[in-house]
C-alpha cells in the first residue's frame, strides 16, 4: 500500500515545444492540506488538469490512491472532488438543478444537495438561475459541486478567486476542517502563500513549470532567515568601526543591518560600539516574512 494519496513521477506537459509543466514529482500525504503555489502561468492549472485526466501528460505518470490514473481513471475520479480554474456551471439552471445534474452521475442521495448548499452558504439562493449569481456565488457553487460526492480527495484550483474577505475566511475554515472531520486530503492552489499559510501542512512551489520547493510549512519557516537591525546615534561612524573589526554590515536608511545573527557576533558588535560611546537605541531582530521568502524562491528563476 502506497502512503501517498497523490504521487507523480516526472510529470510533464509540453505545448508546441514549450514545457508548461516539467518533470514534476509531487508527493501528497493522506489527510494533508497541500498548498500548491506559484505565480501566474507557473503551471498550477495545467498540473491539476493532468491530475484529473482532463489533459494527457506528455511524459511521466500520475498515481492517485496508489493506483495509476491512466488505468483506473473512473474509480479514482469517483473519490475526487474538483474545482478547476474559473467556475463551471449551467447558467440557465438553478443551483439545485446544477447540483442535481452532477448528482445523477455521482449517484448520491438527493439530500446531499441541501447539505452542500448549506456548507457553502448558498441555501437561500438555491432556486435562482445561476447566471444571475455573482462571481463569488458561482465559486461557492463550484465548491459545493466538488463536495457533492463525499470525496476523499479535494483538488481546488484557486478556490477563493472572486470571494470577499469574509468568504475567503469561510472557505479557509471549511478547508481546515476537511482533514480533521472527514479525513479528506486537500490540494489547493494559489498565487499567495499567505492564503494557504494558515491551513496547509505542506507546500509545493512551482515556477515556470518546475517544482522548486516541496516541504512542510515548518521547514519553510526555518528557511526564512532573520537579520539584525541596529539603530545608533552616529550610523556612519559606527559603520566604519564595524568594518575595522571585520564585521560585515550594510547601511539601510539610518539603521545598520546584519545578515549574521549568531549571538557572538552581536555581542561583540554591541560591545565595540558601547566602548566607543555610541548610543544604541534599538537592536531588533527582523525575520523575513514567509511571503518575502516565497517571492524570493519564485523570483530566482526570472533573474537567471
Amino acid at each position, binding site marked *: 500500500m502506497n502512503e501517498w494519496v497523490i504521487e507523480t513521477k516526472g510529470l510533464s506537459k509540453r505545448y508546441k515545444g514549450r514545457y508548461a509543466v516539467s518533470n514534476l514529482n509531487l508527493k501528497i500525504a493522506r489527510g494533508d492540506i497541500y498548498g500548491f503555489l506559484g505565480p501566474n502561468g507557473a503551471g498550477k492549472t495545467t498540473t491539476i*488538469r493532468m491530475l*484529473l485526466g482532463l489533459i494527457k501528460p506528455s511524459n511521466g505518470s500520475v498515481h492517485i490512491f496508489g493506483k495509476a490514473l491512466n488505468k483506473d481513471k*473512473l474509480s479514482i475520479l469517483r473519490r475526487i472532488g474538483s474545482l478547476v480554474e474559473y467556475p463551471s456551471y449551467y447558467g*440557465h439552471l438553478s443551483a439545485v438543478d446544477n447540483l442535481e445534474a452532477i448528482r445523477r*452521475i*455521482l449517484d448520491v442521495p438527493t439530500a446531499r444537495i441541501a447539505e452542500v448548499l448549506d456548507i457553502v452558504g448558498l441555501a437561500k439562493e438555491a432556486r435562482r438561475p445561476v447566471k444571475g449569481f455573482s462571481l463569488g456565488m458561482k465559486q461557492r457553487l463550484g465548491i459545493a459541486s466538488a463536495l457533492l460526492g463525499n470525496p476523499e480527495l479535494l483538488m481546488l484550483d484557486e478556490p477563493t478567486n472572486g470571494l470577499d474577505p469574509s468568504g475567503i475566511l469561510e472557505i479557509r475554515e471549511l478547508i481546515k476542517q476537511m482533514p480533521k472531520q472527514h479525513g479528506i486530503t486537500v490540494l489547493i492552489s494559489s498565487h499567495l502563500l499567505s492564503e494557504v499559510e494558515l491551513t496547509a501542512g505542506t507546500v509545493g512551489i512551482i515556477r515556470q513549470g518546475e517544482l522548486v520547493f516541496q516541504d512542510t510549512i515548518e521547514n519553510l519557516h526555518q528557511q526564512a532567515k532573520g537579520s539584525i537591525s541596529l539603530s545608533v546615534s552616529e550610523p556612519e561612524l559606527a559603520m566604519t568601526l564595524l568594518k575595522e573589526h571585520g564585521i560585515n554590515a550594510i547601511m539601510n536608511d539610518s539603521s545598520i543591518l546584519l545578515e549574521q545573527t549568531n549571538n557572538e557576533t552581536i555581542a561583540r558588535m554591541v560591545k565595540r560600539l558601547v566602548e566607543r560611546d555610541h548610543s544604541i537605541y534599538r537592536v531588533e531582530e527582523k525575520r523575513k516574512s514567509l511571503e518575502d521568502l516565497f517571492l524570493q524562491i519564485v523570483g530566482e528563476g526570472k533573474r537567471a
Partner: protein
Amino acid sequence: MMGKALSSDFLKIRGKGLWFLVFLGPIGLVAMQALNFGLRYDYMTQTYAGQLWETLLQNILLFVPLALFLGITLVSSQLANVEHSSNAWKQLLALPVSRSIVFSSKFTLCVILLTVSCLLLAIGTTVLGLSLKFNTDIPIGDIVRLCFMPLLASFPALALMLWLSLTIKNQAIPVSFGIVAAITSLFTINLSEYLPINWPIFAYLGPNQELFAGAGLALGAAIMLIGLLHFNGKDVG
C-alpha cells in the same frame, strides 16, 4: 451508467429551446402543406383526385431532408452549447463517467429528440390529411416510412454535426456549415446517389430504400466511432 448520463443530459437541456425546436420542425412542415392545400383546395382536390395522400406525402418529402439537416444542426449545436457556454466540460469530464458515455449520451439524446420530431410529423401529416377530408384509407405504412426512413439515412449528418459541435467551441462554425449543407441538399438531388446528402430522400423514394437507410446507419456509426475516438483523446482546455 448510460442511463445516469442521459438523465443528467435531459435535465441540462431544460429551458434551452431544444423541445421548442423539436416541435417547430414538424409543425412548420405540416403548416406549409396546410396552406398549400387549404388555399387552393378545389384545384388540388380536382387535379390530384384519387391520389391526395400520395401528393401530400410527396410535397412534404421535398422539405424533409432540409428540415432534418437543419434540425440536426441546431439540436446538436444547442446541446453542445450547454457544456461550452459556461466552461462545464472540465467539470463534467472530471466526474466518474467515461468520455465514451458522455459522447454516446449526447448522441442518444439527439436521436430521441429527432425521433420525437419525426413522430410528430407522422401524427401531424395524418391529422392534416383527415382534416382536409382525404379518404379515410390512411396510408399508414407510407407515412411511417416518410417520417423515419430519411431519419435513418441522415445519421451520417447527425454523427458529423454532433462531433463538430462537441469539439469546436465556437458554435458559429458548425452551425454555418450545417446550414449551408442543409440548403445545398435542395439542389443536389440530380447528382449521384452515392452522395450521402441525397440519402434521406432516396430512403423514401424509388428502389433500394432499405439500402439507403442501411448505408446511412452504417456510415453514421463509422463517423460516430471516429468522433468518439477523437473526443476520448482530446485535451480539455
